[in-house]
Structure formats: structure tokens, C-alpha cells
């Protein structure tokens, strides 16, 4: 699945999970959210599976050992098409197929389960052993299917996990890929207070596993780890995915109180707005001082960039030359952060294969360089390569009519807020209303992709384009003119956060839950109370 589409799917998982939990009045948002990227990558990128034929013999197995992440697991299955999404509202209710903890699907239990669930979770510590049985059976049958098993860190308090940890290497089970959702919180509090697990990496290494440690919320890191795991022979792999429990909703994140609590139904529109409000910062590496691109990529990677914006300029479409596909290909091995290639070239139609082969994750071409026929050709090439497709429009250009027929396939629309060609230009103020109008039109037409703002985005302009609906921010000089890139990126995110909080408060008013919302979110609002002008209000509570 295309990178940006995958990001949207993961958002959808979180939204479906939290809606189900709120409707049920109980459930585990924390564990569902910490594992959302892991489940999303597994189901939309990694697993061989077929939602229309759940028992297909060629499938990979997914064992969800940490059964309390059920809402997130169900939401993933629903988004993948195993059962209708509207059933999420039945979560945990009497007579529902969506039991509090997942139940292995069978004819016998068809009223208490949904197709696709392989294993009955709920009692902790068992799933890794079960995975060993499946993996051994696959070996007997000479099947190359993998077994992916998700385990929780609280769950590894269970001694049986370590029995299984000893067993898989004995049988050289390289067809097992375990993923530890290391969110550091269990029911009673933080894992290191309840039953310390660290040094967790050393433990698994000592048990003779291949261990890969990643940030479990970065889909590119999850995909990279899964690729590495599949190359290892004669040893099982465990991916230690460092995650944040409740990730996605700020007041739930890393907060033990939200291990197993449901939000109020009236908060749901606000939570959805927050989830949809996530932004991606895309530093453009042509900005700043002339230094080599490798260095800059490494710098922004360390600085916390979400994606890397590559301004490809040919000197014809724009009056400047930067680099072409061969350079992107050379840069690709440096990082696994997604490459967002913005082709400012006269004839993308003639060169599209080169950019596909260069290892781009997103390829955006300019509307001005295309017509319907050419775009259709490019679209087919880009999409069939599993790459996100984008279309860019210059400040004077409107999104062409023909582009509207491809909205389902377009993952990103870049709205230029300067005339392309050189970095360091000033933001054109009129663009804000252009983005906001476009966003409104696109929403009506059911567009699910992103709007990306490019040109003159800095701390003074980012809030405007965010408010207008842009969720990917290309940042050039704003990032590279700062000696500390991380600070620069965090500053941009902080600005959009303030806007988000303001919008959420507005929505809280509309839903008559302002006081309740501020109470629930107090620790998030206090640091920005001054900027929001709600200091007195918070102090009174």
C-alpha cells in the first residue's frame, strides 16, 4: 500500500477503535493506539492475506497475543474488509460478534467472532507459544508462510512468554516474527514500576533471538524491520517497537489512566478532529547553505523529520536546476524516511519510470505539465508501483477539472504558496484562502488524501495553512536556518498544535462539553493556556 494511503488507513483504525470504545463504554484505547501503526503496516503492507477468503491456505498468520488491544485489532480487520465497519458500534455489547477480547473465528463461534481472527486472546502470555505451534506446522508442510505475533510488554511478566522465548530458537524458527509493543504501561502503572522489563533487548538477545529495535509509530521503520527480519535465517526475530500508549490523542498518551477507560461519547468528534489533525513535516533539502544532500538528510532524520521533500528541478519548467532521479537513487540508501519527490520538470511523462525506480515513496507532478491523458498514464505507472501519487499546482493555477476524476487515487495535492524555482521566497498570503476553498471542495467530493503546503512555510505562516486544511508542511529555510533542526521542527509542530487546541475548544463549545474537555485535557492545555488565552479558566477549575 502507498505510504500516504497507509497513514490514512492507520488514522481510520484509530478512529474506528475509539468510536467503538466510546459506544461500548469500556475497552482499551491505550493498547489499541500504541499498536495502530504496527497493525496497519502488517495488514496493509506486510501480510499475505485475503479478506474475502480468510482461511486461504497461502496466508500468513497474525496472532494478536495482547488481546486487550481488541478494539484496534477489530478496527484493523474492519478497515481491511473482513467485516463491515459499522459493526464497530456493537463492540462489547450483548449479542455482538465483537467480544471484549478477540475470539478465534469458526463455524461454532460465528456469532461471537469475526472472520480473520486466528486466536482467542485475553489471557496473557500464551500467543507466542501458539505461534510456535503454527510455525512448526508450516515447516512440516514446507510452507513459507510467516507467523507474526504481537505481544505486549506487560504481557511479558508472564513466565510462559519466556518458555516460548527458549523454544523458538531451539527449533530455529525463522518464520516467526514477534513484535513487542513496548509502550511501557500496564494496568496498574508503568511497567518499570510494576515489574521491570529492561534491559529488554539484552534479554531477547540472551535468549538467542534476532532483535531489532525501532520507533513503533514510524511506519517506515516498521516496514524496514520486517524486511530485515525476513532476511534472517535459522533464528526467530523480535522487533522491539518502542511506542507510546494512547498515541494519537494527547491527553491519553503515556497516561496509565487510559489503559482501559472509555472516552465520553460527546468527546468523539473532538478526538476524531485531533486524529485527523496530525501533521507531517517535510523538510526540503535544497534549502539552507550549500552542503551535500547526504549530510542534510542525516541532519533532518536526527531532527525528527516525518518525510523528506525532494525538489526536483530541471531548469526548464522552473528557472533553476537542482537534481534528477539519479541523485534520488543515490540518496535512497541513507535513510528509510519516506521520500516525497516533487517533480518540477517539463516532461514528467517521459521520465516517470526513472523516479519510480529511484525509490520514491511519493511522486508529485505538476498539473501545468500534464493533461488528462498524460496524468492517467503517470497515475497508472506510479500506483502500480505502490507509490503515493501527488499533483501540484502553482500559485496561479487551480486544480484542473480532469484531476477531480482521480481523487480516489491522488494521495496528496501540493498547493504552491510561492512560485516554484528558488528556496527562501516569501509566502503569498492569498494562498490561505485558496487552500481553504480547495479543502472544502475536496471534502464534499470525498477526497481522503492530504493537502501539502509548499513555499514560505515557517512559524509565522504555518498556523494559517494548517487552519485552512494543509496537513503536510514543506519547510525549507524555516528548518535549515535554525542551528537546531529538531527545535525548528518542534516549533512548527507546536504552532499547529496551538491551532488544533483552539479548534478543539471551539468544537467543545459546539458540543457543550467545554468544561469536561478542559478537565480531561488539563495537563495538555496548561503549557499552551497563555497562547489560547484560557489561563484564568484553567485556574478556576
Amino acid at each position: 500500500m502507498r505510504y500516504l494511503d497507509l497513514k490514512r488507513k492507520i488514522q481510520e483504525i484509530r478512529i474506528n477503535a475509539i468510536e467503538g470504545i466510546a459506544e461500548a463504554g469500556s475497552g482499551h484505547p491505550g493498547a489499541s493506539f500504541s499498536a495502530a501503526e504496527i497493525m496497519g503496516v502488517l495488514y496493509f503492507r506486510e501480510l499475505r492475506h485475503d479478506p474475502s477468503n480468510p482461511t486461504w491456505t497461502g496466508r500468513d498468520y497474525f496472532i494478536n497475543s495482547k488481546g486487550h488491544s481488541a478494539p484496534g485489532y477489530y478496527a484493523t480487520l474492519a478497515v481491511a474488509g473482513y467485516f463491515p465497519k459499522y459493526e464497530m458500534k456493537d463492540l462489547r455489547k450483548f449479542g455482538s460478534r465483537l467480544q471484549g477480547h478477540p475470539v478465534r473465528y469458526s463455524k461454532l463461534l460465528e456469532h461471537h467472532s469475526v472472520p480473520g481472527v486466528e486466536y482467542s486472546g485475553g489471557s496473557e502470555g500464551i500467543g507466542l507459544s501458539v505461534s510456535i505451534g503454527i510455525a512448526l506446522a508450516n515447516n512440516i508442510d514446507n510452507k513459507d508462510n510467516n507467523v507474526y505475533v504481537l505481544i505486549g510488554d506487560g504481557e511479558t511478566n508472564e513466565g510462559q512468554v519466556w518458555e516460548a522465548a527458549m523454544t523458538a530458537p531451539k527449533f530455529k524458527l525463522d518464520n516467526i516474527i514477534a513484535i513487542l509493543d513496548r509502550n511501557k504501561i500496564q494496568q496498574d502503572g508503568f511497567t518499570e514500576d510494576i515489574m521491570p522489563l529492561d534491559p529488554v533487548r539484552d534479554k531477547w538477545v540472551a535468549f538467542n533471538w534476532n532483535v531489532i529495535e525501532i520507533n513503533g509509530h514510524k511506519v517506515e521503520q516498521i516496514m524496514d524491520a520486517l524486511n530485515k527480519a525476513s532476511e534472517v535465517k535459522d533464528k526467530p526475530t523480535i522487533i522491539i517497537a518502542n511506542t507510546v500508549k494512547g498515541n494519537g490523542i494527547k491527553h491519553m498518551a503515556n497516561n496509565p489512566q487510559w489503559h482501559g477507560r472509555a472516552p465520553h461519547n460527546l468527546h468523539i468528534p473532538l478526538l476524531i478532529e485531533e486524529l485527523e489533525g496530525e501533521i507531517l513535516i517535510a523538510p526540503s533539502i535544497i534549502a539552507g547553505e550549500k552542503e551535500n544532500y547526504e549530510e542534510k538528510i542525516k541532519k533532518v532524520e536526527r531532527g525528527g523529520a516525518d518525510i523528506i521533500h525532494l525538489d526536483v528541478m530541471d531548469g526548464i519548467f522552473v528557472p533553476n536546476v537542482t537534481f534528477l532521479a539519479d541523485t534520488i537513487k543515490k540518496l535512497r540508501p541513507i535513510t528509510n524516511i519516506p521520500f516525497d519527490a516533487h517533480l518540477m520538470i517539463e516532461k514528467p511523462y517521459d521520465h516517470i519510470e526513472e523516479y519510480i525506480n529511484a525509490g520514491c515513496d511519493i511522486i508529485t507532478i505538476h498539473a501545468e505539465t500534464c493533461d488528462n491523458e498524460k496524468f492517467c498514464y503517470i497515475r497508472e505507472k506510479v500506483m502500480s508501483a505502490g507509490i503515493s501519487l501527488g499533483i501540484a499546482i502553482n500559485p496561479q493555477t487551480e486544480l484542473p477539472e480532469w484531476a477531480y476524476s482521480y481523487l480516489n487515487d491522488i494521495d496528496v495535492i501540493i498547493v504552491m504558496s510561492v512560485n516554484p524555482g528558488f528556496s527562501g521566497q516569501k509566502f503569498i498570503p492569498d494562498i490561505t484562502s485558496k487552500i481553504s476553498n480547495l479543502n472544502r471542495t475536496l471534502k464534499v467530493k470525498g477526497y481522503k488524501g492530504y493537502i501539502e503546503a509548499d513555499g514560505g512555510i515557517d512559524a509565522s505562516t504555518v498556523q494559517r495553512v494548517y487552519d485552512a486544511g494543509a496537513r503536510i508542511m514543506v519547510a525549507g529555510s524555516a528548518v535549515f536556518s535554525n542551528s537546531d533542526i529538531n527545535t525548528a521542527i518542534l516549533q512548527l509542530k507546536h504552532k499547529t498544535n496551538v491551532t488544533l487546541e483552539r479548534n478543539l475548544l471551539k468544537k467543545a463549545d459546539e458540543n457543550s462539553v467545554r468544561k469536561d474537555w478542559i478537565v480531561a485535557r488539563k495537563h495538555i492545555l496548561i503549557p499552551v493556556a497563555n497562547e489560547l488565552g484560557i489561563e484564568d479558566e484553567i485556574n478556576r477549575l
Partner: protein
Amino acid sequence: MKLTDCELRKGDMRSAYGNALVELGTINNDIVCVGADTTDSIKTKKFGDQFPERFFNIGIAEANLVSIAAGFAIAGKTAFASTYAAFLPGRCLDQIRNAICYPSLDVKLVVSHAGLTVGPDGASHQQIEDLSIMRSIPNMRVLAPADSVSVFKIIKNIADIQGPFYVRLARPSSEIIYDDNDSEFQIGKANILQDGSDITIIGCGLMVYKAIKTAKILKEKFHISARIIDSYSIKPLDSNLVIKAGQETGAIITVEEHNIIGGLGSAVAEVCSESHPCFIKRVGVRDTFGESARDSELNILLEHYGLTEKEIERAVLSTIDKLKK
């Protein structure tokens, strides 16, 4: 049903189990066997010698053992998981309940060394609660064969029946009760080994032989005609046969190498009391832990805990006495 002359032959239940597994393995490639460091003793090693690629020793990790068996079943195999009775039903109750019985997976838990007759190992190894524990889990079926012939046949039967089973074997060699050719063991049925009209004795496992011997004494000494039933299938129980026996003979004595709470006696009492109540007397371990005894002292051990022909005889006589009053 043809019975053999009990005194003539002895059979080892574990060897019968091992032999049945080898036969099953030959005809069915989907049979796998997992063990927990007791495979030599339980004779599953026979299967392992023949089919090393389908045999897995998991070590002393029983929870892991039964869960791995569940995994095999998820992947389409029929998994036999075995170790001593002392270590499965209690230690792995949660895994058996959640990972095997709830999804009704094709896992056969076959355990040996059940009851007091483990002998020298003492109470820690004398499993006398397993029938009770296993019986209370939905989807689980619970069997306690009486001799090596029935073990062999039952193991072969259950391999073809989807879903979980708990089969309980004893450590000592059993007297052979059944004829090899002319005996049948359907799940949910019981066998009437001898008809009788004055009282019914229902037994399971090694105690069936003691019931047969007691019946002879009752006939010769007291002219009491006892109906003897081998209820190898404790769950599902052959309710019709049991209820009918109660109706026709007026009273039932149950005999099991198990705590009198929750086992065969309880199962019989449950079905009778709900349809045709009759007098029921349970012979078994009277809610106490056992103790060590050398193999040569097994009879003393059984006598101390009330598991002898003498005890059954006493139960019969006191019951008949009570009914007369």
C-alpha cells in the same frame, strides 16, 4: 461385548497409547505429537522414533506445551500433547480453557500417571482432581479407559473426532478386561460388562477391574446380582444407560481413582438426580491428599484411601441394607 479372562493378561496403557499413535501417524500425516521431558516414560517417543519430523520435545514447560499444541491445531494439525496427569490440568488450566477449549481446537491431551497408583512419588504427583477440573470446561470431553485395549482403541477413535479431549491413563499395568477384536468404545457411551439386577456399579479407569472382581464376590458370598458398567466416557456421560441402570437396579455405586468431588460419581449423581433420583454411593478418595508408597505397597495405599474391592463390597452391602429399611 466379549470380555477376556481378567486374570490371564496384563497390559501397559502407555505402550498401548504409543502404539496407537504410531499407527495413527502411519495413516495420517497431520498427526503431530508434543511432549514435555516425559516422552520416554509415556511412550510417545515411539512415535518420535518413527516420525521425528512430527515430534517435538518442549522440555519441562507444560503451559508452553499445550499452547504449542493449540498452534498446531490452528494450522490444521491434530495435536497430541502428553505428560504426567499431575502437570497438565492444574498447571495449564488457563491455557487449556482459553487457547484450546474456547475455540474448540483439535488438541488431544493424553496424560499418564493419574490417581493414587503413581505410588512412590507421593501426593504432589497423585492427580485426583483432574476429572473434576477438565469436566467443567465447555467443549472438553473427558475419558478414563479401563485397560490397555480400550486405551488403544479410544486413542484411535478420538483422532478422527474434531475438538479437544482429555484422556487419563494410569501408571501401573492394567489387567486386560476387553477382547481385542470384539470391543467398541464410542464417545458418550458406556459398556455394560456384566448385567445384574440388585445394584449397579459404575467405574472408570483401573477401578473397573476391581468392580468386576467385587461383583464375583458379591455373587458367590451374598447372592447379589450387580450390574457392572465401564463408564470410560465421563463427559459426555452415557446418561441414558446410567439413568436406566438406576431405575432398574435401584441404586448405584460409583468407583473412581479420584476425589469423590467432581469426578465420575458427581457426573452420575448429576444426571440421576435430575431425572430419576436413586440412591448413589461414591467410592473414591474422600477429599484428602494421598501419600507415598512403594510399588509393592500399592495395595496398602489403596486400602488406606478406600479404593479396594473390600471398600466397594462394603458400599454395596450398606446400600442394599439401607434400601431394605
